[in-house]
């Protein structure tokens, strides 16, 4: 039947055209702009300048710093989220009182808009009225306010705490679901063989759980750029670029400085990093789907 043959094309075309229009076409356009000196405030500046913007970025110390900060930020955030998420998931997968409600409540941070998380933690870490300093005062642990968002190292720590608060929740949910779906037989067999708790975790739980870890990581990889929202609000990349991430730097160059050409070049750096990361993870994941 002819209709049946064209059915898949018919079903996919609407989705695909929208993606092409909203994602692929603008990306192609911004690739072009990234090779021009376009600035929003200078009319007639959309002239071809070759790879100048990319050369500018390579010689820009802030660019390298934002790259380094992003690697540090993501490495610490994702590993901590995974570690905490796994730990809490192991607790939740046991039979504890009110387990079902407990597992649902752990979803709450995941549903917060990243921008909201940013405001919330900006306020908690505020040196004058923030909850964190207030608590430390009340407990007589400090006498002078700690300048959380003003000192470079502490600012990085603060944005990390905010991101980890948000991301751990998602890890908990996926990993708890994974733990509860594990087959019982291998554990019973190990019990008979006299395996210790740690041995069981190392040789049974962890390998069986790894597809879930992959899924959690893959879905997170689609969303890591939303870290922009909270960092932009909390520190705006400051102080002195100490928390500048590749995404906040796009915003700084493109939107604040209105250098669209340079901003588009910078945005390509973020696109390549995100897409390569997601490609690797989804490639693995699609193998399991068959």
């Amino acid at each position, binding site marked *: 039947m002819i209709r049946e043959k064209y*059915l898949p094309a018919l079903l996919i075309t609407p989705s695909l055209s929208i993606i092409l229009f909203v994602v692929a076409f603008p990306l192609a356009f911004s690739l072009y*702009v990234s090779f021009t000196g376009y600035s929003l405030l200078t009319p007639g500046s959309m002239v071809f300048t070759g790879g100048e913007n990319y050369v500018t970025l390579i010689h820009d110390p802030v660019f390298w710093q934002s790259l380094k900060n992003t690697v540090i930020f993501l490495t610490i955030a994702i590993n901590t989220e995974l570690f905490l998420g796994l730990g809490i998931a192991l607790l939740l997968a046991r039979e504890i009182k009110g387990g079902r409600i407990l597992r649902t409540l752990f979803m709450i941070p995941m*549903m917060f808009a990243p*921008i909201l998380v940013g405001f919330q933690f900006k306020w908690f870490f505020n040196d004058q009225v923030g909850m964190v300093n207030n608590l430390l005062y009340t407990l007589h642990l400090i006498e002078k306010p700690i300048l959380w968002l003003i000192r470079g190292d502490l600012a990085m720590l603060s944005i990390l705490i905010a991101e980890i608060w948000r991301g751990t929740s998602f890890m908990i949910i996926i990993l708890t679901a994974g733990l509860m779906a594990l087959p019982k037989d291998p554990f019973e067999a190990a019990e008979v063989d006299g395996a210790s708790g740690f041995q069981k975790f190392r040789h049974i739980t962890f390998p069986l759980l790894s597809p879930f870890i992959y899924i959690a990581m893959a879905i997170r990889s689609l969303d890591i750029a939303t870290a922009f929202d909270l960092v932009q609000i909390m520190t705006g990349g400051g102080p002195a670029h100490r928390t500048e991430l590749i995404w906040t730097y796009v915003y700084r160059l493109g939107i604040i400085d209105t250098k669209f050409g340079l901003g588009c070049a910078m*945005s390509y750096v973020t696109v390549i990093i995100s897409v390569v990361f997601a490609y690797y993870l989804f490639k693995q994941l699609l193998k399991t789907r068959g």
Partner: protein
Amino acid sequence: MRKKGKEFAFSFLAYFFLILMLIPALWIIFTSVRPEVEVNAYPPVWIPKKLTLEKYQQAFFSPGVGEQAVPVRDYLRNSLIASLGSAGIALVLGTLAGFAFSRFDFEGRDTLFLFVLLSRAVPGIALSLPLFMLFVRLKLLDTLEGLSLVYIAYNIPFMIWIMDGFFREIPKDLEDAAQIDGCTKWQAFLKVELPLCAPGLSASGIFAFLMAWNEFQLASVLTRSLSSKTMPVGLLEFTSEFVMDWRGMCAMAVIMFIPAIIFTFMVSKHLIKGLTFGAIK
């Protein structure tokens, strides 16, 4: 006895972590109903002593009154239109495409599937610059239509991912049986497979809604005025260089996360199933 102690310790730890994770959320709720004097009080007032709904009242009923008034009602309306509209359309289109990917074997299927998923990995901030330039030319800047269109594209890949998973769970025999009874593949889809996927539909629809509901990067660049600004962008207005209306912001935050929480709880089971499909052999 020892075993019981251990179980107790584990429960205690679990609840401890829960409270630790919920403190930020509770603090926002508390602040939204505190009187102003408690916010900047020293020593800090942890649990509100007096309740006031003043900020909620201000958010909904008196926009334009007072120097700090933020038109929350307009932003709420815009958010609802953009999120519901884009989630609905993405749901229809994504389900159709998800069905095609899961049930048909055509050339380049896997590559196309990967391409669609990767389109979602492009950071919003990277798209915001070219979309801004494009939308200016197409007169789509600062319109809800433009923003919704972006959200549809943003949501389709995930929708396809989840629905593909759900369709794969349905035994193919069911479809074959329907076809033997004289249904075409399309009729089988409408009458057999789609109804079976209802939980998947609700879960992925709500997921799409939340994605748009919470989105900030694109909305902050593509919206300008009351006619299209959404709540995440509106939040910025509670802060200025010197003053910060914490209570107003917290009230808006509560208005933002209540639908998110209700919706997610409603479909959490199906959502988790949709997300983790394929992990269990």
